């Protein structure tokens, strides 16, 4: 969608013709205005942003990459491709990706229920969603172990299995999609959906054609956050998964093992590898999102 279209033309979709409600959809997807030349104030803003970002993220990242390559390409590659490490990377990335996709579905459903439905206890549920954010992860691991471990009161024991890795990551990443989708869903105006259904669209078609396209960017960024959080998780896993090499060991445990041994180069090499994977996934998600937005308009 282009930012110049002041009065969007009616969009012809499969079953219904819909005039997009300008405020609802454009507020989500319209291109932000930007200045072609920096004013003094925005120049200052940019300076502060870059300085802050550099101090907190860019310089530390550069240090990690620097440590990783200091030992030479051979050592870097050997650390990254040790079978035990590759297994840990494979497990971590696969589980984090799977759970991120699961969150896309479950998170959207939870956001939908919280925004659209009025029921007793909604306020409580709204607060409970954030608990995985607020709880120290080691406590999360402890709680999950007592619920889904050998002494499970409900008879489910998945401790020290790969399922436990998925469970812990699902727990700590639950809020991301919910919290990115909710504000967008709140902004959506019901008129459009009502118009669609009054023109004969089923509720599924309305959701798929009208609501979902507006939610897609929020879902995508929630998925990205969830994935990024998942591949870096440590605290909730150490108690629950047993850290068994080649089976339930995740990347952060490999990194910690190298640090404990004073092998900082190897630790940084794995961190750099994960950085590349994370960047690739985030960039891909961004591309998908842009493509979807272009396709829509």
């Amino acid at each position, binding site marked *: 969608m282009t930012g110049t279209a002041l009065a969007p033309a009616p969009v012809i979709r499969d079953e219904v013709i819909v005039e997009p409600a300008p405020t609802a959809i454009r507020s989500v997807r319209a291109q932000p205005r930007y200045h072609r030349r920096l004013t003094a104030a925005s120049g200052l803003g940019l300076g502060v942003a870059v300085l802050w970002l550099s101090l907190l993220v860019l310089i530390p990242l550069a240090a990690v990459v620097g440590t990783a390559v200091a030992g030479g390409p051979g050592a870097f590659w*050997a*650390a990254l491709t*040790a*079978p*035990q490490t590759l297994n840990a990377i494979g497990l971590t990335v696969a589980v984090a990706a799977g759970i991120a996709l699961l969150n896309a579905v479950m998170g959207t459903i939870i956001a939908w229920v919280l925004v659209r439905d009025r029921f007793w206890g909604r306020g409580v549920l709204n607060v409970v969603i954030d608990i995985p954010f607020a709880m120290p992860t080691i406590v999360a691991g*402890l709680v999950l*172990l*007592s619920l889904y*471990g*050998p*002494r499970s009161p409900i008879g489910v024991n998945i*401790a*020290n299995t790969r399922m436990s890795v998925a469970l812990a990551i699902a727990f700590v990443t639950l809020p991301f999609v919910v919290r990115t989708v909710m504000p967008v869903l709140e902004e959506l105006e019901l008129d459009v959906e009502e118009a669609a259904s009054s023109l004969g669209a089923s509720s599924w078609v309305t959701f798929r054609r009208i609501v979902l396209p507006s939610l897609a960017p929020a879902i995508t960024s929630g998925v990205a956050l969830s994935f990024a959080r998942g591949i870096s998780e440590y605290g909730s896993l*150490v*108690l629950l998964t*047993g*850290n*068994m*090499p*080649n*089976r339930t060991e995740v990347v952060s*445990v490999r990194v*910690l*093992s*190298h*640090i*404990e*041994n*004073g*092998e900082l180069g*190897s630790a940084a090499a794995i961190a750099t590898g994960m950085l590349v994977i994370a960047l690739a996934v985030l960039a891909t998600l961004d591309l998908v999102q842009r493509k979807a937005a272009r396709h829509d308009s």
Partner: protein
Amino acid sequence: MSHPSLSPRRSLAALTLLIAAWLTACSNVAASAPSGSGESTVLSIVGYAVPAEANARIAEAWQQTPDGQDVTFETSYGASGDQSRNVLNGQPADYVHFSVESDVTRLVDGGLVSPDWKSGPNKGVVSTSVVVLAVRPGNPLGIKGWDDLIKPGVEIVTPNPASSGAARWNILAAWAHIAANGGSDAEATDFLKKLLGNAVALPGSGRDATTAFTSGTGDVFITYENEAILARQSGADFDYIVPDDTLLIENPGTVLIDAKPAATQWLDFVLSDQAQEIFGETGFRPLNGKAPARVEGANDPESPFPQPQRLYTIANDFGSWEELSKTFFAEQTGIVTQLLAELGKS
């Protein structure tokens, strides 16, 4: 919005002030000493998690003496390796108490601890214990010693020897059981391989492993006697066995080169009979060999520290931490590193 509110510029200014005030407060925390009598000294203790309670009680006892009456403490406890790296990276410390010697060696290499820190009669050791086998109440599998651990179907929990330096005592005890009894390195390696093959969980630290075991994971938990006693004092329901042959755990403690003078007096007190008795009450074996009259949580509280028939030591059976770190835990070539890398592959 109609409700009265600050203009954006004013609220931005207020926010900036708030952040500035907060940052100032943060940076001042370290500098502010508790006000009191002018002679007051603050000693920083940095240690691994397990002796936190013992140290607190020893500090209390010391403050009753002339040397310690004007001293207060700032303490920091965590995973041994992490704590050692923190000190190396600038965390203030007057006295450190770690699980393994290599965590002090790191500080010697960094110029923070004198190279002759082991020259005293205690050879740098401030607390000791032994490796024991914790089992389910009543010992349903009839575990008696190391050889029972490699029987098929025995599920073992031990902290991860790769990510927890402190956990290395356990794996070394199992190695010594074969190697120090006339077995070849190959036989000892094979024994460790079978033992690790029976492992169902390798939690991140000794305390994590205790939690995993008391939460129901595994049949046998390789741990330190003091950890077992402390857990039982806190109500954990399991038994433990002191094997006929096991490894002596020696936890190093020392003062830093730039420490305040009171730190040396503190170390002297830590080594005194009075302080060692407090260590004994929390499950450590006192350096002087005098067990307290009663240790709650021990198998036999009246005779808490049975002497194993054979007690291996790092010095006698492994040479030094430097050598064994290379032999067992070096990247790619270490015996334990390789065994762990092969785990879980069929």
